[in-house]
């Protein structure tokens, strides 16, 4: 076991960790918002919207994330230069990067899983609470914002914690589209120093640490609300 490479590679490792966390935060943040929309569309949208939302969830949950990522990066990425005016615009430096495609595909994928979780949770909110809100004269938007959604998120919290951990574990896929995330750094160390296991072990320790951090954080959030058992 040889860990002396850490001294020369720690700036890269730190940068990789930042990329990994950034991918996680972006995909969970935006994916959650999109997931709420998809869940609501499936429950109370007009019929065509229901079908669109359901189809979206089925397609994204039924295919591997790796394929979705490659479809976006190689497929859509190869079509993008055909869009006139894009190459000159301020968006081009962002759209050119693998990071953009990784963040986009992780977000879309996370939203599909989150939508299923939230759909179940929204349906699990006791009817009486919603009726109580309505009888107070709340508009449907106020009802959603004050009662329906907060209650549903609270019901779904343990599952959401699991989904976030799963999302963290999916982020190393970004290395296949040239993102220098934590795993990509381990890969580079392996190529430079011919050490196979040591970089993997260091990176693994970081992922496990992040997992523990996420579960702790969610436990704390869950503990905010007293539950009568």
């Amino acid at each position, binding site marked *: 076991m040889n860990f002396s490479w850490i001294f020369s590679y720690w700036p890269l490792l730190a940068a990789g960790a930042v990329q990994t966390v950034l991918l996680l935060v972006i995909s969970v943040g935006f994916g959650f918002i999109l997931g709420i929309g998809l869940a609501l569309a499936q429950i109370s949208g007009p019929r065509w919207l229901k079908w669109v939302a359901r189809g979206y969830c*089925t*397609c994204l*949950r*039924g*295919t*591997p*994330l*790796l*394929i*979705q990522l*490659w*479809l976006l990066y*190689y*497929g*859509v*990425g*190869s*079509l993008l230069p055909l869009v006139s005016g894009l190459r000159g615009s301020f968006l081009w430096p962002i759209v050119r990067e693998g990071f953009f495609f990784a963040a986009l595909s992780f977000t879309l994928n996370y939203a599909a899983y989150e939508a299923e979780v939230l759909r179940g949770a929204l349906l699990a909110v006791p009817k009486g609470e919603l009726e109580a809100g309505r009888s107070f004269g709340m508009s449907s938007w106020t009802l959603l914002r004050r009662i329906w959604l907060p209650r549903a998120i609270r019901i779904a919290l343990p599952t959401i914690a699991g989904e976030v*951990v799963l999302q*963290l*574990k*999916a*982020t*190393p*896929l970004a290395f*296949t589209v040239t993102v220098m995330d934590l*795993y990509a750094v381990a890969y580079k160390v392996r190529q430079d120093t011919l050490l*196979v*296991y040591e970089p*993997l072990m260091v*990176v*693994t320790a970081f*992922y*496990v640490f992040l*997992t*523990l951090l996420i579960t702790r954080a969610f436990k704390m959030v869950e503990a905010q609300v007293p539950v009568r058992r």
Partner: protein
Amino acid sequence: MSSTQSMLELLSPYPPGWGGVLLSGGVSTVMISLGAYFVGTVIGLGGAIGKLKGNRPVLFVLDIYTTAVRAIPELILIIGLYYAGTDGLNRIMLALGLPTIEINGFVAAVAVLGIVQGAYATEVLRGAILAIPVGQIEAASAFGMRPSLRFRRIVLPALMPNALPGLANLWMSVTKDSALIAVVGYQELALATRLAAGNTKHYFLFFLAAAALYLVITLLSNVVFGLLESRFRRGQAKTA
């Protein structure tokens, strides 16, 4: 590239088209998934029984196994196990004075994915066994059934309906996780698609086709698991 004609030609299953490569990739994806699923379920059954009946050291080892596999990203596990597994096996062979062997990519893929699946299957099956009413198992003991007979006749049929939804989820995840095998260079659907796409430069078309194939696998599996569940739940009272 503008016409539908050339797209169909590209996807045709006969040589100038790449459909055949994609389909055989799809077949090897299904084969890897089936193998890994079988290995994983066997490990899971052993693990579940170990977790319920085992002594301290067994419990400790199994806890580390299930926790580690579920906390480490699949990609890292697969790459780590792939290299460590082949390397370790060859070191053992060397120590025993035997010639080193080239491990078949298929076997390695099945073993690696099976070990990952085993951890999840352990938890699913443990929960399913715990959900069996104790009275049924006690009744079997009272009839004088030996543990092996009791397991085969009572525990196994009773745990299946409890375990099936979880096992169905695991099957869905193994078919999708098998795409990660592409990263270590074994040719299944994902890698075959990348090959076809790279050769023809029609990235969008081929990845879309691969996604459709995966979706077909998923949707067909949904139907099969639905049938299996109604079969295993026959004789049970319908809820709601």
